[in-house]
């Protein structure tokens, strides 16, 4: 509760300073619009549903892409963890690819798929897959030996041991993987949408910039930041916390 109040005061202060700067008229409103103008623009966008459509489009790209990258990441992660040769070859390559910023894939996606939604989803998939893969790989490889021993002495082996013990034991890593995959995908999504032909938040952002609509530019940046932190803190961190507690990896 304390923290919430502190945050509210902080943001109110920030808006006050922002308004103060605007009132000093150092820069024209076309460069630094007033807070009121930004919120009004956002209000209009939501009222005429254009921003709602953008949000829906962005979330569609994100969830399709994220779902695909979680599936691929899980499958490849299991492969890397169980087949040594795959880890030594494909694993090294994925580690290298992981360090490539996802915006780098946008030109390639545009050439392959044009400026449409497929290209965006492709970039989102690339954005999330590698980190998911590496987390699943680590999770499967780091199952506590005591769980395996316990399982074996209770008559479990082979595929049964893998499905009933190795997979559930690596769930904490999978959850962290999903959280990171979401964060990477979200960034990749914005990068891809900026260069796309819409619809989507990123597209509208670049569109607003082209038409010098500074209020909308700042408004969308605020939305992107807000969604990012809300999803991370309310959804993913809570989920992670719950799993870590249940798995006995963290005391409440």
């Amino acid at each position, binding site marked *: 509760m304390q923290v919430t109040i502190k945050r509210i005061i902080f943001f109110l202060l920030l808006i006050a300073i922002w308004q103060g700067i605007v009132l000093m008229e150092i820069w024209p409103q076309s460069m630094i619009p007033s807070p009121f103008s930004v919120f009004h623009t956002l209000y209009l966008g939501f009222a005429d549903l254009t921003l709602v459509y953008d949000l829906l489009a962005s979330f569609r790209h994100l969830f399709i892409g994220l779902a695909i990258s979680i599936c691929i990441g899980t499958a490849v992660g299991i492969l890397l963890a169980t087949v040594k040769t795959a880890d030594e070859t494909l694993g090294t390559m994925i580690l290298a690819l992981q360090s490539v910023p996802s915006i780098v894939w946008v030109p390639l996606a545009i050439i392959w798929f044009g400026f449409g939604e497929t290209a965006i989803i492709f970039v989102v998939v690339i954005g999330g897959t590698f980190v998911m893969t590496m987390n699943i790989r680590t999770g499967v490889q780091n199952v506590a030996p005591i769980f395996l021993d*316990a399982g074996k*002495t209770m*008559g479990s082996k082979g595929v049964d041991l893998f499905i009933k013990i190795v997979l*559930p*034991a690596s769930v904490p890593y999978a959850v962290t993987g999903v959280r990171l995959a979401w964060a990477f995908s979200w960034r990749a999504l914005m990068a891809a949408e900026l260069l796309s032909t819409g619809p989507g938040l990123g597209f509208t952002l670049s569109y607003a910039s082209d038409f010098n609509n500074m209020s909308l530019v700042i408004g969308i940046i605020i939305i992107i930041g807000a969604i990012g932190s809300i999803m991370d803190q309310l959804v993913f961190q809570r989920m992670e916390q719950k799993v870590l*507690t*249940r*798995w006995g990896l963290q005391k409440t």
Partner: protein
Amino acid sequence: MTLTIDGVSKQFNQTGKTPAIVLKDIDLTIPNGQFVSLLGPSGCGKSTLLSILAGLQKPTSGKIFLDDVRITTPSPDKGVVFQEAALFPWLNVLENVMFPLRKKMPKKQQTERAKHFLQMVQLGKFLEHYPHELSGGMQQRVSIARVLAMDPTLLLMDEPFGALDEQTRIILQQEVEKIWLDTKKTVLFVTHSIREAITLSDRILVMGARPGTIIKDFSVDLARPRKKADMAPLEETIMDLLKTEIAKVMREELSHASND
């Protein structure tokens, strides 16, 4: 069923070092229904021996038989209770105890059987709890219920109460003794508590270190439940024996250290 250990040795080959001989020529016969404790200085190979008997590790040489059947892999006729309870955190108490029954009987029967053994260890009210919500003693009770539900012919326990406080430890000892009297399973019980060993066992094996061998085989012919006064003489004898053995280990460690 009789457990026969026939010339079991174990050595670990470490890269760049001389191989460590952990167990050397262990020969042992444990008749059906006997409660046997294994005492010895830490690092003498008790856990290694247990894990070989469980089929989790392979001996470097030697063989193990349950009656006439050779043990080479883990199987449900050999139940293990580890020092940590080793419960699966993603399953609740009931599901944990049902785990070894999964493929053996219909679901309804599994549930009944699991509940029965959980009641036996006083946990009938905690079926839906998850392991992280239980104390260490309760977790160890669940793992005892789990191994009993599996109904192994041989029960291997590796310092099962080592991580528990004295109070809980004594209560669980009494429960284990009662369960053993009811079921008459063959038990091999590793402990570092001489008192615990004498309280529970028909027979106590004392191991020496480097290499791990059985240096003394005591049979305990005291009436149950055992009284402190009755146990004192044997306790003293074993204490002296272990002291000498531990002193020997420490001397060797010191001379190793000065040689390095």
